């Protein structure tokens, strides 16, 4: 496989090229034409399929290739996340099509199709297609347990009434369908041999500040909503920035570190509008509406298509800051996180492991690997508990006797990471840590010394970045928000880096913050993945419902293009699933996220405490 094809096939489908998270502007054709096919993600898939002769050159193929203006924005975006430069693929795609046309080879035209005509009548000529090039870009994702399924149609409605009419038509012709947000769940949920309904055009955002809510269309991405909310002085609880908000609620209820105070699932919204599978429309607040607040501990199907949701707005105070409290092991970190949650200290709480910390802060894989070792071996930091809160919350943490990295120290650490990995003076920290862990963080002038020692600067941080992109990244990291932990946690733009080295499969469970139970399950996750030779690591834990429960993510990694690793991952996932089920049965307090999928509009209490009666 040549490098271009390898890059094309390595696209993780995280849809980060569909949001303007770096301020570069969006891919022009994607923003205009909305189909994922016109974004770099789609072009990567398309090129790989053409290069491997899996699809013919079609009319849309030509349009997709020619609409790329090779602006290079995708390089900045994708490099930020995966360290890849997709523009080589974009060029290769254009070249492939140019040669095809130059040689006068056939360009396939979509056949006449009465169903397609019907769909076009509903959504407009451009917004329904059966072109194979478009269909291909909706046919697969890196999920190791999902097989590719090529849809007959891809439809992009822009109103609830259009969705309703599309569903009615598809039902009439008994055509199965899948509803797709940005597909960034990458769990194989959004594929169908029939039709894929892409809601990406429904981008309305209407604020109702008086009622602390914002009505969002089904096509609004989390990042865009957060940006709009932040401009008005609010915050919303979002998960992955490229995930579409309505789809994300439907999928897993939205959880983030802010879920420690904002909650999850039904806590996130006030109302929502749906199109049922019969094509009928309803609002959740209707007395006669299906009861989506309820939860049943079983694999579920989507209860309908959420066309818009009324999302809760949260206030933001000007004195918010972050505290990263270091710990040498998991148990005391959990104790601290639980105590903060129980005492209602802080807005966001997350117990982060070394993998996340190093990967999120580092612009390259190489640096991330070095940083992980430095944190563990030199600084003796195995876990960091992140708490975001106002000045009273941060003061409370100090009063509790914990030393922490504050905003300034995190900025220093982040921009000085390359120096950190080679700093001899860390040996002293190592020895101090043995006597009194992390006590240096309590020194008033330590930040000054750290600045002298690490010489933090954007230039230093990006010194290993690809030389072509380095000037851009140097400017990027000079922006205050790029090293502001509050902003980064609010907008979540670095979390997609967890899939930078390999595609990530998140094992997620809800359970009590019981140190013994968590430690046991953590070890089991590790044992299982290790037995298959898969890279794996602790992800994060966030307390829920004032520390009575938490959401725990453990991550397995795979090269999704490696058939052997896919097989191993399938086996590991099955074994891990059995392990979760065993703990669930034994404790009555462990809930696998598998059962929350498609029930994300339910009350969190119904799945957090499902063993206590909700599961009837």
């Amino acid at each position, binding site marked *: 496989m040549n490098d271009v094809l390898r890059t094309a096939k390595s696209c993780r489908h995280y849809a980060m090229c569909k949001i303007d998270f770096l301020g570069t502007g969006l891919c022009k054709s994607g923003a205009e034409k909305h189909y994922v096919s016109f974004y770099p993600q789609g072009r990567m898939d398309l090129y790989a399929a053409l290069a491997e002769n899996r699809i013919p050159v079609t009319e849309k193929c030509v349009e997709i290739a020619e609409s790329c203006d090779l602006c290079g924005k995708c390089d900045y975006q994708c490099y930020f996340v995966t360290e890849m430069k997709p523009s080589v693929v974009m060029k290769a795609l254009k070249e492939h099509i140019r040669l095809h046309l130059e040689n006068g080879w056939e360009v396939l035209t979509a056949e006449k199709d009465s169903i397609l005509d019907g769909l076009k009548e509903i959504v407009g000529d451009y917004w329904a297609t059966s072109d194979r090039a478009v269909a291909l870009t909706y046919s697969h994702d890196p999920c190791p347990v999902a097989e590719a399924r090529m849809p007959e149609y891809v439809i992009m409605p822009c109103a609830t009434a259009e969705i309703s009419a599309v569903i009615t038509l598809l039902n009439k012709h008994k055509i199965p369908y899948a509803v797709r947000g940005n597909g960034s769940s990458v769990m194989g949920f959004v594929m169908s041999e029939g039709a894929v309904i892409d809601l990406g055009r429904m981008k309305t955002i209407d604020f109702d500040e008086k009622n602390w809510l914002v009505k969002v269309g089904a096509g609004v991405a989390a990042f865009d909503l957060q940006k709009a909310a932040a401009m008005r002085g609010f915050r919303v609880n979002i998960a992955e920035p490229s995930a579409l908000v309505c789809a994300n609620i439907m999928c897993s209820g939205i959880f983030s570190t802010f879920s420690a105070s904002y909650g999850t699932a039904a806590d996130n919204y006030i109302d929502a509008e749906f199109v049922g599978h019969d094509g009928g429309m309803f609002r959740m607040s209707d007395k006669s509406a299906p009861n989506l607040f309820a939860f049943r501990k079983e694999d579920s199907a989507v209860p309908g298509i959420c066309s818009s949701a009324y999302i809760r707005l949260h206030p933001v105070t000007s004195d918010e800051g972050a505290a990263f409290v270091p710990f040498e092991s998991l148990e005391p970190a959990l104790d601290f996180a639980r105590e903060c949650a129980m005492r209602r200290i802080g807005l966001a709480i997350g117990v982060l492991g070394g993998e996340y910390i190093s990967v999120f802060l580092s612009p390259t894989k190489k640096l991330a690997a070095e940083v992980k070792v430095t944190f563990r071996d030199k600084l003796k930091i195995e876990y960091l508990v992140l708490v975001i809160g106002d000045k009273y919350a941060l003061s409370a943490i100090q009063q509790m006797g914990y030393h922490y990295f504050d905003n300034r120290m995190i900025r220093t650490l982040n921009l000085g990471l390359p120096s950190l990995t080679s700093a001899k003076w860390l040996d002293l920290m190592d020895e*101090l840590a043995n006597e009194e862990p992390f006590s240096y963080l309590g020194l008033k002038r330590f930040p000054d010394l750290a600045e002298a020692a690490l010489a933090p600067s954007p230039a230093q941080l990006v010194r290993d970045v690809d030389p072509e992109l380095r000037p851009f990244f140097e400017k990027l990291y000079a922006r205050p928000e790029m090293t502001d932990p509050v902003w980064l946690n609010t907008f979540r733009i670095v979390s997609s880096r967890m899939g930078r080295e390999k595609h990530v499969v998140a094992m997620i469970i809800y359970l009590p913050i019981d140190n013994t139970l968590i430690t046991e399950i953590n070890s089991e996750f590790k044992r299982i993945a290790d037995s298959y030779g898969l890279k794996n690591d602790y992800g994060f834990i966030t307390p829920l419902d004032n520390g009575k429960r938490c959401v725990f993510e453990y991550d397995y990694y795979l090269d999704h293009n490696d058939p052997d690793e896919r097989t191993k991952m399938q086996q590991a996932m099955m074994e891990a699933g059995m392990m979760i089920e065993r703990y669930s049965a034994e404790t009555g307090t462990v809930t696998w996220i598998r059962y929350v999928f498609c029930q994300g509009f339910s009350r969190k209490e119904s799945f957090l405490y499902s063993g206590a009666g909700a599961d009837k």
Partner: protein
Amino acid sequence: MTGTKTADDEKHLLTGATGFLGSHIMAGLLSQGKGVVIAGRSSGGESLKERIGRLLTWFGIEHLEGLLEFYETDFLKRRLGLGEDEYETLCGRGLSIIHCASDTSFAEKNRARVMKSNVESLTEILNFAHKSRTRCFHFMSTAYAAGIDSIECPEALVNSAHFTNVYEESKAHAENIVYGRCREGEIPYTILRPSIVYGNSVTGRSLRFNALYYPIRSLQLIRDIYLDDIKNNYGRKSAECGIYMNEDGALHLPIRIFMPHDGTINLIPVDYFTETILSILEKPETETFYHITGNNPERMARLVSYTERFLNIHGIEVVIGTSSAEEMRNPPEELFDHFIKAFRPYISDKRVFMRENTDRATSGALPPDLSYEIFQRCMAFAVSADWGKRFNVLRP
């Protein structure tokens, strides 16, 4: 001399032979042609024999390995973790015992571990001493087991109620146990109390770089942070703290070292320590405490002048008193102060250690004063060894 077997009545059973002091005692005994029975544990995937082997190499006495016997033991287990037959056989040899094994952490958070290692583990080793009818049980303690209740510290059991740290406390507690059990069981015993031991005054070599070395190493690293800042970042952060390059090429590094009161630091070189121990072992007087200490302890001001000269820095100042809470300290000063917090009691020490017993055993041999030449030799070796990182034979 080559390693050959020696009679049991000349042999010693040594614990803690993989530590700094224990290893020097081992090397000293071997160099006298005496056999040593090493009781210790494997660690980090290395057997006891392998660990000792690395030390023999460091001392350049690999050829004496034949004088050694090895017993993998666990002092917290019954019969030292040995099989019944093995234990009985060892007991039957009536070896002299030198018990050096110890946990030297000062940290309160390690209290349980330190007490377990330094106090609890005595039970089995004293059972062994009793059962084996040892010629003499030599217990390695510290001069600072005397505690902080009185300035004059006699070579006798001290019942101090206050200590600087858990290590001192554990050693005082252990001395009491040794004293009580040995008297009760009629076990001949000595208590050996060294002060702070640094490297070899003749060669500069050392295996461990804490105590005296730690503040110098801290200052070197702090110095290097600001030298880098001056070299690579126009000295921006240095200027904020009044740090600059002098015309003579030395770094002006204004750091005040606050000491609660005037005092001294009692240092002895490891070569003196070893010679003294070997003298005591030669003719031990039972029920005797030995202060292996210096008669002319150093003042901090002199150590500071040595350090400035060695590191090519200026601006270090010893201040008697404590800094007021509102006093603005510069970052290196604050960090250095934090670094030496655990050692502060030892650099402004007023205690005087009587040493009549040691003088008698050594015919009055005293440790050399710490001249700049000795200081320079020891620190140069430490730097060349990257403060123990370049070779780390004590810890696998």
